[in-house]
């Protein structure tokens, strides 16, 4: 049995770790709430873009826009979103697993691919593999993306797709279902899909300036941008949620460990006291004899 001094030091260490994990859990919970709110707040933007596109589809052929052009996929661009930091449970490993699956599919179907890595963990992984060409790496994106970081990613994807260098653009990200359920997903953003809105809300006799084509270009760009932005926000909410859960488990484990060690220390201390008493009684006995 370990000495009481050693056990005391271990208990102190475990309690310190517990304080850190508890603090990280609270920080992650607060960030998750903000990320969830941001996810909800961006929904009207996507809906408005869809409604405008629905109205526009009555005046011009939306499918003729380069963003909607469907081609046989020979090369595709994968935008992989993971985190900059670890300690978020299976968050990064789930994304890497999904990414490897996609690379295997491409390998089997003889599709070439290029990758945009978002987050240090993805960048570190992508740097180690040879199956893909790296188009860009984005690290240290803010906790609350404000849309500006989106443009560089969106412009890269748009240029590659419209120039015909890639035939599809997919995002691999973690979809936030609820605070206890997040799923790694593959979402095709280009060629863009278009689901008509129920109520376009735009007057049928509206004039389009400068032209329907230019307005369509502006809306299509924003619709695709909104999808990428939504994926970024979902990924952030999922990361904080998974970190919160991981830190809660770590805090619970630290509590259990501290309890076990305290029990062990009390036993050791009791043992030492019993031994000391036995020795004293033995000494007294010896003196009486």
């Amino acid at each position: 049995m370990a000495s009481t001094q050693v056990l005391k030091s271990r208990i102190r260490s475990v309690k310190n770790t517990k304080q850190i994990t508890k603090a990280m859990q609270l920080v992650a919970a607060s960030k998750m709430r903000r990320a969830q709110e941001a996810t909800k707040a961006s929904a009207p933007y996507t809906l408005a873009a869809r409604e405008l596109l629905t109205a526009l589809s009555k005046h011009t052929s939306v499918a003729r826009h380069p963003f909607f052009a469907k081609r046989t996929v020979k090369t595709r661009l994968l935008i992989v979103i993971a985190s900059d930091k670890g300690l978020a449970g299976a968050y990064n490993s789930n994304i890497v697993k999904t990414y490897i699956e996609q690379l295997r599919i491409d390998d089997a179907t003889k599709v070439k691919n290029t990758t945009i890595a978002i987050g240090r963990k993805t960048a570190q992984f992508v740097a180690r593999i040879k199956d893909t060409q790296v188009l860009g790496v984005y690290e240290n994106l803010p906790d609350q993306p404000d849309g500006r970081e989106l443009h560089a990613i969106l412009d890269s994807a748009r240029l590659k797709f419209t120039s015909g260098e890639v035939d599809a653009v997919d995002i691999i990200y973690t979809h936030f279902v609820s605070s206890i359920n997040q799923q790694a997903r593959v979402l095709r953003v280009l060629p863009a899909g278009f689901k008509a809105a129920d109520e376009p809300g735009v007057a049928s006799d509206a004039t389009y300036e400068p032209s329907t084509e230019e307005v369509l270009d502006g809306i299509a760009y924003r619709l695709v941008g909104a999808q990428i932005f939504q994926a970024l926000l979902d990924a952030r909410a999922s990361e904080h949620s998974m970190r919160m859960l991981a830190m809660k488990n770590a805090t619970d484990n630290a509590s259990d460990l501290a309890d076990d060690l305290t029990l062990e220390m009390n036993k050791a201390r009791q043992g030492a006291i019993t031994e000391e008493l036995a020795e004293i009684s033995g000494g007294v006995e010896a003196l009486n004899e």
Partner: protein
Amino acid sequence: MHLTLTTLLGIKIDQVVYELIIPTAAGEIAVFPGHEPLVALAVAGAIAVRYKKTDDDSHLEYFAISGGIVEISQKAVRVLVDESDHGADIIEAESKAALERAIVLRNNAGTQLELEKAHQLVDRHSVRLKVAELHRRRRHL
């Protein structure tokens, strides 16, 4: 007419207004109730909102917007932009410093990509500075 200003970060305005001045690809347009239905490309600039018919120019509220789409119907205006900030939320000194930094970046840009990014930054901070100035002047009217 009802004005909705929607950005990637959420809805910034959702209320009844009397007049809206907005920069579009064809120039600035003023929108009043009963305007002809129109869908136009909005460009980066300042939008001005007059909430009531009786409000004078000192009550105009300014917002800096990035490019987007504006949709006008008889009774409503919907503006869809990536980014929008109220004049009161922009700190003039910060915008001025950011604009100066962006100009230095533009002058020192080595590649086409750096130049494009610097141009975007210059445009963004110019608009923000203009809106902050408009907001300050309005308070002194």
